[in-house]
């Protein structure tokens, strides 16, 4: 019998199957450097058919496998924790169809998020979900994680914008999920698949919704002398019935890092926190709502509220916001980008507590997050070479998770459970709930070969 490597080479060609340990190093972790595992091989399929044929080979040899887009994930989801084969989908990066009449596009999984919006911008459309990594992350990865981004507040997550998928199941069969523009009938397998973190199969074709660009957009910068004031302003905006398209907070540590980097956006470095607030829609509504947002911010102690005067100023603010993780990454060897969600009214209570946790463990923390939907990103700067510090990071993260769950929150709003948060799952779900999830997973992947070791506590996954 041929080795599985030889079989993969027969399907894909020698140069598209790499097993040289030096070259595999690039695939030992994703955007979260805490978890490192070398795959046995990485392959570069170029079509659904190649993916399916490769999956069949691996299923027959009982070799685990997983798909990977740009590797920008932040939960260790694209790491080969049990060895096996990584399907690098970067070459499946064609936009297959753009259909303005039905307001949809059909893409391959390796298409970069921002590339889609750029392809349709001229015609007056955009693709709404915009993770901070949108210049690099792929739509296939977005589907796996049910990715979010600042504009989720108004427009919803990836799951609200995907209309259909072509999926290679872990046994190599190809199925269509969702209606690809019209409604599907039956159980909502499309909704179930999105956010399954690569454990249900490999999406090889994605139909997404395109949205009409709004008539007007205004972006505001409000700065505050205390994080609590900024948090109360956020709650007040939401409670006033205004639905901004984005409502982001950056604290002083983040502002300082951003202003010292290439992403410098002219943020006031003496502020305790700034809010970036974007309102879009019809010109008439935007004017009306901007006035109210300014009023609310002032009433909650904003020192200054500035409205970006033009597209360049707006772009600069967003470059600062979206470059924040990169800027923070520069100031220490490692960065733990945490992700948790709380009911938004709890912000003024929870945020100070998170700073206290970091202080107690002697850690440097910066918060930059989607305040409008209560999606926190406490980021911890640390040195991964110092095992004692790593332990403190882990202990602080656990306390943060416990705190968020205690106030009615969730473990992750957009980064996923991956490898990193499996241990916390019992904080949120009962044994029965986790058992049900494990059984649903087994419907898609009875042999437990597809991205094993992720999402659910390991003992629930079948051994092989």
């Amino acid at each position: 019998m041929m080795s599985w490597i030889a079989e993969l080479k027969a399907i894909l060609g020698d140069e598209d199957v790499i097993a040289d340990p030096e070259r595999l190093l690039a695939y030992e972790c994703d955007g979260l450097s805490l978890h490192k595992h070398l795959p046995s091989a990485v392959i570069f399929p170029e079509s659904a058919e190649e993916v399916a044929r490769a999956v069949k080979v691996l299923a027959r040899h009982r070799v685990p496998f997983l798909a990977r887009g740009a590797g920008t994930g932040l939960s260790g989801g694209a790491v080969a924790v049990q060895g096996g084969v990584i399907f690098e989908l970067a070459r499946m990066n064609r936009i297959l169809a753009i259909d303005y009449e039905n307001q949809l596009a059909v893409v391959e999984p390796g298409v970069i998020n921002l590339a889609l919006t750029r392809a349709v911008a001229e015609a007056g459309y955009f693709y709404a979900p915009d993770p901070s990594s949108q210049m690099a992350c792929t739509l296939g990865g977005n589907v796996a994680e049910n990715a979010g981004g600042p504009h989720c507040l108004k427009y919803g997550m990836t799951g609200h914008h995907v209309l259909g998928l072509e999926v290679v199941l872990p046994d190599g069969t190809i199925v269509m999920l969702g209606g690809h523009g019209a409604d599907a009938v039956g159980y909502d397998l499309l909704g179930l698949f999105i956010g399954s973190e690569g454990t249900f199969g490999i999406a090889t074709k994605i139909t997404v919704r395109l949205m009409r660009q709004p008539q007007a957009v205004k972006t505001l910068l409000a700065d505050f002398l205390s994080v609590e004031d900024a948090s109360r302003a956020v709650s007040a905006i939401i409670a006033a019935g205004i639905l901004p398209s984005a409502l982001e907070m950056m604290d002083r540590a983040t502002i300082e890092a951003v202003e010292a980097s290439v992403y410098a956006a002219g943020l006031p470095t003496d502020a305790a926190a700034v809010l970036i607030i974007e309102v879009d829609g019809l010109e008439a509504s935007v004017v009306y709502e901007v006035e109210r947002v300014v009023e609310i911010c002032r009433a909650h102690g904003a020192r200054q509220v500035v409205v970006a005067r033009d597209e360049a100023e707006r772009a600069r603010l967003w470059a600062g916001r979206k470059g924040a993780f990169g800027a923070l990454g520069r100031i220490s060897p490692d960065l733990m980008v945490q992700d948790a969600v709380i009911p938004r009214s709890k912000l003024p209570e929870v945020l100070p507590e998170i700073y206290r946790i970091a202080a107690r463990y002697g850690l440097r923390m910066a918060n930059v997050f989607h305040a409008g939907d209560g999606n926190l990103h406490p980021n911890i700067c640390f040195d991964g070479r110092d095992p004692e510090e790593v332990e403190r990071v882990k202990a602080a993260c656990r306390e943060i998770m416990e705190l968020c769950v205690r106030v009615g929150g969730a473990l992750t709003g957009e980064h996923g459970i991956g490898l990193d948060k499996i241990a916390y799952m019992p904080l949120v779900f009962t044994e029965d709930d986790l058992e049900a999830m494990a059984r649903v997973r087994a419907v898609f992947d009875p042999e437990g070969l597809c991205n094993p070791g992720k999402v659910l506590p390991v003992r629930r996954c079948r051994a092989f």
Partner: protein
Amino acid sequence: MVASPEVSTVERELISIVGAANVLCPAPDEYAIDDRRPLAVVFPGTIEEVAAVLHFAQARELAVVPMGSGHRLSFGNPPERVDILLSTRRLNRMLEYEPADLTASVEAGCRLEAFNREALPHRQWLPFDPPDADRATLGGIVATDDFGPLRHGYGRPRDYVIGVEVVRADGTRLRAGGRVVKNVTGYDLNKLFVGSFGTLGVLVRVNFKLRPYPEAEATAVLLGPEWERLETASQHILRSELLPAALLFSNAEATSTLLPDRPQKALLVRFLETPPAVAYQVDRLRALARSLSLDLVDFTNDASRSLWETVGRLRRRLPTDLLLRLSVLPAHTMAALRAGERALSPCLTSMYVLAQPGTGIVHIGGRLRAEEANGLARVMEALAHLRTAWESRRGHVILEQAPLAIKRNFDAWGDVGSSLPLMRALKQIFDPKRILSPGRFVAGL
């Protein structure tokens, strides 16, 4: 084979769970689903009681059909068996409502109208307008993922469910999702239960995210003698920056119920926005109507709201034996509407048509001319023809309501596609003994 259950034992057991006042045995006629009359109707008052009923039912292999208000029970295939009809009527509490978070948690039997009455003073709401919204329970709306014209601007109930609690066929409880608006903690099992028509579990609690209630509203009704110019108008709106909350074609029969003195084809455009944006959009519509030589009638605030309430009650206002949903690609809406009209007008009297060009949903309803010779055969032929034509164009033809004689010979859902084996496997996991609404859903699940 299971021997037919002893009625008196079932009654005794149900009474021991929920009390004699909350069991109807034998079930009165009005609780029959299609031609099946349940042995008993049960009204549990707590989640524990629901669990006990299911535990008992599964042990005895009795078929259980969960029910909200009951007005959508005939949606889908006729159930193979109905032993116990489980009403959520007494599970109707609003459990948590935190206006500052724009989230709420309710028991499944809580009615949409009652909920929105509580939320409106906070200028918040659940933006759902399914047919008969004044009767519908939130559990029923979620179980059927039922929607109305607001789907155009606000999406489906699916998009608002952030957590559920379900009692499974064996009586165990399952929670999915949570209470926050953004959450990817574990698999999104919410999605399995939304729109599963009571075939995977009994929804007992649902957590929603809400929307701010808009400050102003208006509706512009464009009227014309034929579809062409109304379609031009809708295309123009869809390609513009306007943000209608609903966009709906209505044929003369439907329009005559809404505007008795204007029995014409119409395009109804609803705006829910800030006051200046509503005024701006109505002005734009006036200009559009002028340029296309269409008549325009507009309604603001209460008058607009009441117009749409009438749309939601059309099925009650007009005699309806048959109600069909065509779901197609949005760009095919008008073609599907015309095809549906053509195919069904020989079979229906007072045929009404409502269609959403933004979402590709077409509803056609009316009274059957079944009394005529071969009436039924002709309907069956028309339905089969429509299904063949539209399934080949990514569409579906779904029976929302039909006489049993039709439903016995025409599957309510049609072709599921390549993912059917996965659906079967999921049904097997959650309901291995097939006691939950057996046969009602796609492919007889």
